[in-house]
């Protein structure tokens, strides 16, 4: 029998919720008994995705960020969704060091960290409709 467990979280697009979001996911994933390193990986990836939604998706304005986290056996599936402005060129956005907001001192490393710390990363986005970041990680 497959073991599954799911969690949904909807938060206001406020920077103070970034730490809350990554703590919630870390707490939920704890049931798989991950290593400290695996937890750190997931926290960083969630932090990057939620920060992107707040800064880029909603341009630091109001909105809701949805976070879904599903555990299936030893795998964690995380989705971060915003209904903000969407990404014009996903490929460009994912290039290391590229940022659309250099004036905010963004390092352009967000997607690179998500890719590096998770096993799989997919980005779906439509201009004017929003963005969903889907990530997967196997907990050993």
């Amino acid at each position: 029998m497959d073991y599954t467990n799911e969690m949904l979280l909807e938060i206001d697009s406020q920077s103070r919720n970034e730490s809350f979001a990554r703590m919630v996911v870390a707490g939920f994933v704890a049931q798989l008994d991950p290593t400290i390193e695996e937890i750190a990986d997931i926290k960083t990836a969630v932090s990057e995705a939620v920060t992107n939604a707040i800064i880029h998706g909603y341009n630091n304005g109001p909105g809701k960020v949805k976070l879904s986290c599903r555990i299936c056996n030893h795998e964690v599936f995380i989705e971060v969704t915003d209904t903000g402005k969407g990404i014009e060129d996903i490929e460009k956005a994912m290039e290391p060091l590229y940022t659309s907001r250099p004036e905010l001192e963004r390092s352009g490393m967000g997607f690179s960290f998500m890719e590096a710390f998770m096993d799989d990363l997919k980005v779906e986005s439509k201009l004017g409709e929003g963005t969903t970041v889907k990530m997967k990680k196997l907990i050993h």
Partner: protein
Amino acid sequence: MDKQERKRKNTTVMQLREGVKADFEIVNRCLVVKLLEDLDHHNAVSIREQSDKLITGKNIKDIIFDFTGSEFMDSSGIGVIMGRYKKVIFTGGKVAVTGVNHSVDRIFRLSGLYKIIHKFETIDDAVKKFNNN
């Protein structure tokens, strides 16, 4: 270390308010930023503002970011450190990080930031090194 004790210890430049993100100390012309919370986007904003006020106002040459009190950093933190690096590099200044845990260290390694900033075990190590140069 509780808040009262911190307050007493910091005789130089301290900005203790509700929800303080970092303690700031100046040793010679070196700014020591002792992080007390995660260095994420939310905390980056005020840490950047407070650091920059001191860097320009107090003629700062070198900067040390101490992570002893901070367990987490993401790409927003890279932005903060890069930004401060750009401010001091033109006057021959250096930037160092101290007290980094394993996960923060991985972020620095992955981002390639160690090519331009230094890493030391303790603040004292970094201060000594900077003062000798």
